[in-house]
């Protein structure tokens, strides 16, 4: 057992890691999976055809079909260079700590159609480490092979394969945390939540087979393997966030969706089961099973006023392979919930409010000092994206200005003194930021 000074040092290091992780998680929520002009160039469509706000990320039903068709739809005018780029500058004002103005991210996208049946999305992201040094990493990947316009029983059928590195990112409805990047950033969380510590997002590789029947019934099944720590390092990820060695991992998704042109709704279930060896010492494994459901509704009307609502509820059942302390329990549950509402006016102005809650069963041996990991957070964002619409000056580039407010009311099981000793409160994680994003 560690002596007291070392335990304090270890705890302080863990707390700093948590602080860093919270910031990184919200940064992810602000910048990931945006509309990229390469798809507009490829299809002749406006960004706003696929996204409610013309810079994304929320998908319209048309955008979901584009994704399901393997990013291969085209205007038929020959080969388009499948490359786009994005720059993001941020004015960040945290509740605690120094404010900053930085070029925070520079991204390259390799995305679009290779053949009528093969297409993809690959994001290479370069993030400012705070000292104007940029760490480059391989972000989300979704490569697809798709067989379109099949018939089964007289109904339309689409079948495809997705090779991706983030369970849930490939989902067409895009409400799951892997796709929306909206997940509660706590001291623990479900495997399907990319904001969870040691989440598999971007540190695994997997393949899923999917099908859409009668434009309504969606099914998907697949498996994932975690990348070696050295590979994660080479791809730009700190090995400390290793999701561990994953065994017998299965991913299953079913959803029913209806596109009524002026409205859209969906109801789905998702499951992910894995045995996790963390750390990778050949020791015991944790058995983790995520079971979730999601509900979404969109009012699209004539696209002047768009309302999008979603609710995601994921319960993770854990059977731990080891007991780190005598007080630790052999089993537990973690429960992530996200409710999001967004209103978009004229496909340019968006107000998004997201309420994120993570709770867990009591375990005094794992969640110090209060025995519960509960976190409650909100993201409130206001966007303006003037281009990317049918009547826009250009489809070659797009711009988004956003004001974001991250707010915590509970973290690590408490509102105040969240690490036990006086000094750090949940609201210390609050932050306001203004971002300017340019894509071309």
């Amino acid at each position, binding site marked *: 057992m560690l002596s007291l000074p070392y335990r304090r040092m270890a705890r302080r290091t863990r707390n700093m890691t948590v602080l860093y992780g919270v910031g990184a998680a919200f940064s992810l929520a602000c910048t990931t999976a945006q509309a990229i002009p390469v798809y507009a160039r490829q*299809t*002749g*469509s406006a960004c706003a*055809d696929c996204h409610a706000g013309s810079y994304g990320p929320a998908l*319209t039903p*048309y955008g979901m079909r584009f994704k399901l068709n393997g990013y291969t*739809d*085209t*205007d*038929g*005018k020959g080969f388009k260079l499948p490359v786009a780029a994005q720059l993001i500058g941020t004015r960040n004002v945290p509740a605690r700590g120094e404010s900053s103005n930085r070029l925070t991210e520079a991204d390259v996208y390799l995305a679009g159609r290779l053949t009528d049946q093969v297409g993809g999305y690959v994001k290479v992201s370069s993030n400012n480490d705070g000292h104007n040094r940029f760490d480059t990493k391989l972000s989300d990947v979704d490569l697809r092979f798709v067989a379109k316009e099949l018939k089964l029983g007289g109904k339309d059928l689409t079948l495809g394969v997705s090779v991706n590195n983030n369970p849930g990112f490939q989902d067409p409805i895009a409400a799951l945390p892997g796709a929306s990047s909206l997940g509660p950033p706590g001291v623990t969380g479900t495997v399907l939540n990319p904001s969870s510590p040691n989440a598999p997002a971007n540190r695994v590789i997997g393949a899923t087979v999917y099908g859409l029947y009668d434009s309504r019934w969606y099914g998907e099944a697949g498996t994932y393997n975690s990348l070696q720590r050295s590979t994660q390092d080479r791809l730009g990820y700190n090995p400390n966030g290793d999701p561990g060695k994953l065994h017998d991992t299965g991913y299953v998704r079913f959803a029913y969706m209806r596109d009524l*042109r*002026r409205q859209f709704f969906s109801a789905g279930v998702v499951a992910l089961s894995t045995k996790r060896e963390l750390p990778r010492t050949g020791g015991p494994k944790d058995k983790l099973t995520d079971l979730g459901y999601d509900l979404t509704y969109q009012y*699209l*009307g*004539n*696209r002047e006023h768009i309302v999008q609502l979603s609710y995601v509820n994921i319960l993770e059942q854990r059977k731990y392979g080891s007991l780190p302390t005598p007080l630790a329990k052999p089993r537990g549950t973690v429960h992530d919930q996200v409710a999001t509402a967004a209103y978009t006016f004229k496909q340019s102005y968006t107000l998004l409010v997201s309420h994120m809650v993570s709770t867990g069963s009591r375990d005094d041996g794992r969640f110090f000092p209060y025995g519960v990991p509960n976190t409650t957070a909100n993201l409130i964002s206001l966007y303006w994206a003037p281009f990317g619409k*049918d009547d826009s000056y250009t489809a070659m580039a797009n711009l988004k200005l956003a004001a974001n407010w991250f707010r915590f009311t509970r973290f690590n099981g408490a509102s105040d003194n969240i690490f036990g000793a006086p000094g750090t409160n949940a609201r210390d994680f609050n932050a306001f930021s203004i971002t300017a994003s340019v894509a071309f």
Partner: protein
Amino acid sequence: MTASPAFAGDASAGSDVFKSECAECHSIKEGRNKKGPSLFGVVGRKAAAVPDYEYSDALRAQSAWVWTPEQLHSYLGQPAKRANPGTKMKYDGLNDPKQLDDLISYLGTLH
């Protein structure tokens, strides 16, 4: 003389129908093709006549078709695959008669 039933619709309301039913795949700008060809000047145009759009063989084969209001009424009132088997167009059809009239009236204004 009575007006053609297809032009009895409300073009203003048809603009909204266009935005929800057609705009993802068709532009109203002259010369701008998306997944489908530009619908600028579609009423009265011969089928498969936009010069820089790659039509399906199935529509090219309908050389006698002209997009009159009556032809549009028939074409858009049923699934596109039934109206023109082999077409690239993916549309289930508009089965609300008023919306269909409104839409065709709106298309008639695109000149």
